[in-house]
């Protein structure tokens, strides 16, 4: 059986192609058209595997662009997909922290990887990848360098949660001559504390798994672990958890359909 999960995020579009034994993945920037990037990531991953759309049994789309994909069999939210993906990637996960480009979520899951409860940020960008991106731009750095730049630095307090106000706060900190690395550490802490408060409200899990693009940032992970007072495991390939979850849910659905067909025959 071959299934595909397509996760169209605000910044990156991810695809996972799942066969009975293996899975492979592909990432593309989303750009200005979620529909186009979703289509193109699907075509490219199939091409690379030497497959055609007819070879695929089921496609699940997820991420904010999920509704704009005409070729999928079903759209499932990234909350359900990240839960399933994290459950597969890290054994025994009971709580998932997912920080993506424009959203952050905390998800409580059961032993099957199903969602039991979740919390998600309100419409502002505080505590998301976008917040890091905006701050990186102010500091003249790339978002991927932030963790290395801040390594070992003591964090400065960034009091504004609002991205716009935090940006001016960073500018004024720079003007005061506060070292860049301390500011970056402060930014990491700001993201972590925002997400930690969502986790507190939901009721803490035993085994926390970190997914989404921001999970690649070691600084955020460290502060998150400090804020929550417990270890947090970064999922292998954290950015792909959503697309992998989508492909796994596609497989589940496909099996269900087969069972129903068997019953009919």
């Amino acid at each position, binding site marked *: 059986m071959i299934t595909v999960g397509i996760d169209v995020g605000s910044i990156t579009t991810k695809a996972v192609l799942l066969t009975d034994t293996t899975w492979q993945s592909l990432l593309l920037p989303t750009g200005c058209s979620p529909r186009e990037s979703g289509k193109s990531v699907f075509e490219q991953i199939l091409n690379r595997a030497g497959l055609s759309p007819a070879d695929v049994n089921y496609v699940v789309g997820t991420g*904010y662009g999920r509704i704009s994909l005409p070729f999928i069999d079903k759209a*499932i*939210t*990234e*909350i*359900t997909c990240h839960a399933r993906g994290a459950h597969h990637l890290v054994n025994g996960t009971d709580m998932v922290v997912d920080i993506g480009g*424009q*959203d952050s979520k905390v998800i409580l899951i059961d032993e099957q990887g*199903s*969602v*039991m*409860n*979740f919390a*998600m940020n*309100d*419409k502002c960008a505080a505590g998301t990848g976008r917040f890091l991106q905006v701050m990186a731009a102010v500091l003249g750095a790339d978002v991927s360098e932030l963790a290395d730049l801040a390594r070992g630095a003591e964090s400065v307090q960034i009091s504004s949660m609002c991205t716009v106000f935090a940006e001016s706060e960073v500018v004024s900190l720079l003007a005061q001559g506060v070292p860049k690395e301390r500011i970056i550490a402060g930014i990491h802490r700001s993201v972590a504390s925002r997400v930690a408060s969502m986790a507190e409200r939901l009721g803490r899990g035993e085994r926390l798994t970190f997914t989404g693009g921001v999970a690649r940032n070691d600084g955020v992970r460290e502060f998150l672990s400090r804020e929550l007072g417990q270890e947090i495991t970064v999922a292998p390939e954290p950015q792909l958890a959503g697309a992998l979850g989508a492909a796994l849910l596609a497989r589940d659905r496909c099996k269900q359909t087969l069972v129903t067909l068997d019953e009919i025959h």
Partner: protein
Amino acid sequence: MSNDYRPMWESLGLDLESHDQLLKAIPQAFGGVYMQQKNRPAEMEYFDFVVSEIHGLRIQELQEHKSRGGKVVGAFCIFVPEEIVRAAGGICVGLCSGAEIGTAQAEKVLPRNICPLIKSFMGFKLGHVCPYFESCDMVVGETTCDGKKKAFEILNDYIPVHMMETPQMKREKDKVLWRSEVRDFVTEMQQFTGNQVTYDSLQRAIIDVNGKRKVLARLAELRKNIPAPISGKDSLLIEQIAMYDDVDRFTEQTTKLCDELEKRTRAGLGVQEPGALRIIVSGTPMAVPNWKVPHIIESSGAVIVAEELCTGLRYFENTVDEDGSDLEQQVDALAKRYLDIDCACFTPNDARTDKLVKLAEEYQADGIIHCSLAFCDPYLVEANRVEKVLKEHNIPLLRIETDYGQEDSGQLKTRVEAFFEMLAAKKA
């Protein structure tokens, strides 16, 4: 709108340019949210017609009433006893304030961060865009929340405001206070309209308004059926229209609709599949044209079966006792009915959380969505109590905080859909 109402709007002093923009936006929004629905009851035609004439026919009726010397009284809260306005020969209209309008003007007198409903009513008044507002001779304010309480002082610069002090607790002394407020309102309305409120006129008004509440309760009762015979969006629209339509006509039309729904129920017809998720919405009022969250919910495959809102159950769930033998007993009955409303402005407000548990059971709801306007302290804070009680009863809850803007629609859709995926998995 069929007739040319421009001369009327002009005479009301409306800012015609802004008003045109508003009127252009409503059919678009209404078409997208309402007319795309499948399996709508045929009797919704009347309510669609009311919306198509939103600033036309009803305003004309209000003007005719005024030309006969009648008064029009506006209200923003379901604590204002409509019966007393009617008994004094006035017409009471609920002013909607469900759209972001005149923000720049409103912000001249209000802080930037304030409840969108308050900002909206100030915007409507200062921007001269609501013909209902401009038809009002007076507004009745209340002290249900700090934002409104203080905003009414400002509104009084532009239109006479009579304030009623709504208590914050429900002890005996609070009941005495509220009873005196209701009694004073009778005197106030008599003076304002020049008409005497008599036992007979008040009795008539109590019976008429009870009639409206009873037909709305009948509609609510019908929604307990599986599959639900009417969508939550249509029901909300009816509840919104109840606040400003002619009472007798509204009762008659809603009765017709309920008759149709009864037939549908007997035939097993519904708006969604019998297996569709059943949701109760609870929280702050949803005023016209704020259909944002119900639209997201129902376009994600669920059906809303009840609204524990001011534009919903809180408006009609209790009736006024009709057995009073003199005016003072009628006032007692009115005061009692209104103080029974379980608004988050009261402390404690266990009756509301207890009711939610009961509603979830009676309506066989799969989950509750708590929806509050931004900056509404009473409801946003009370959400914690709601969450606690629902958790004890294993009733799934999703909490939403939003305003009249559309920029968070995508984000809200993700949360609502994820909630439904979770509920569906639990159900399976």
